[in-house]
């Protein structure tokens, strides 16, 4: 089998995401209206981010286990691509919030900025931002790889409390918070409409594969650049 099959799969899934995401039937909800279709784009960005951070931490642990420089390159680039997806998720969230929470729900901007998931996601992205600052502050390669691998584990450990647990404990405008419908929309199969599920899961896989593809391109460039170091 062609080893590039997953790249083609990513393309097919994303074409399906756009065509199905724009045209298939969706639940008719007040305030959200057609913007519920953002589920396939905005939410998929965050899912791709979490998966890429997950891959990154695996390579960090692998580095700590064997001190192979190759694993450090993998960990760094997956974290970078994950952060990029997170920034895209944040930006798309701004746009979505502007047309639903602010203009159609008459909430104030300061009220929106208190939204715990916004703050949590900002904290999570800043923690990952510090990962790159930390990497840049080392001149010694082995030290950089080792310390940043340990830091990456801490960053991943902070990711889930800040974007999932804390917004659930306090009131949140996002699904799953207290004061909303309650419960866990990720695990409650009655919460997300099956029509949305039809496109949402392929969308998550498609966007994640695209992000992984771009991350592997960056990794391959770095591997060629550091060829002499890797063979030494």
């Amino acid at each position, binding site marked *: 089998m062609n080893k590039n099959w997953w790249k083609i799969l990513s393309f097919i899934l994303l*074409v399906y995401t756009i*065509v199905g995401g*724009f045209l298939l039937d969706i639940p008719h909800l007040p305030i959200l209206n057609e913007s519920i279709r953002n589920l396939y784009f905005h939410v998929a960005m965050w899912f791709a981010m979490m998966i890429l951070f997950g891959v990154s931490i695996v390579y960090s642990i692998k580095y700590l286990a064997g001190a192979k420089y190759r694993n450090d390159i993998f960990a760094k680039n997956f974290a970078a691509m994950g952060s990029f997806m997170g920034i895209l998720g944040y930006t798309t969230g701004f746009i979505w919030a502007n047309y639903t929470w602010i203009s159609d729900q008459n909430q104030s901007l300061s009220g929106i900025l208190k939204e715990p998931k916004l703050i949590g996601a900002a904290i999570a992205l800043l923690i990952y931002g510090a990962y790159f600052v930390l990497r840049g502050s080392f001149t010694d390669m082995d030290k950089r790889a080792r310390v940043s691998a340990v830091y990456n584990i801490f960053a991943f450990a902070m990711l889930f409390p800040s974007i999932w647990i804390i917004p659930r404990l306090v009131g949140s405008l996002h699904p799953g918070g207290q004061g909303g419908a309650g419960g866990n929309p990720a695990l409650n199969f009655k919460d997300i409409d099956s029509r949305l599920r039809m496109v949402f899961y392929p969308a998550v896989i498609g966007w994640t594969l695209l992000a992984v593809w*771009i991350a592997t391109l960056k990794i391959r460039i770095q591997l060629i650049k550091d060829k002499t170091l890797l063979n030494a």
Partner: protein
Amino acid sequence: MHKISAYLLRSFLLIISFAICSISHAQQRVEMADAMRANGKIYVVVTVCVTILVGLFLYVFSIDRKLSKIEKDSASQ
């Protein structure tokens, strides 16, 4: 070589004439609602997004291929 270029030119002219035919065909029936104009022209948005996606993938794929070539070169050195 000459034969191939003549063949290419002929097929190109054929495509052009088809395109002209389709344009004049559309002009004759302005009132006909074709698929692209249905549902508030949402299909136009879909087509634009798919075009962007195809372009993006072609770009990433070309980078991928270039990189594979560089990898092959640096491996043989």
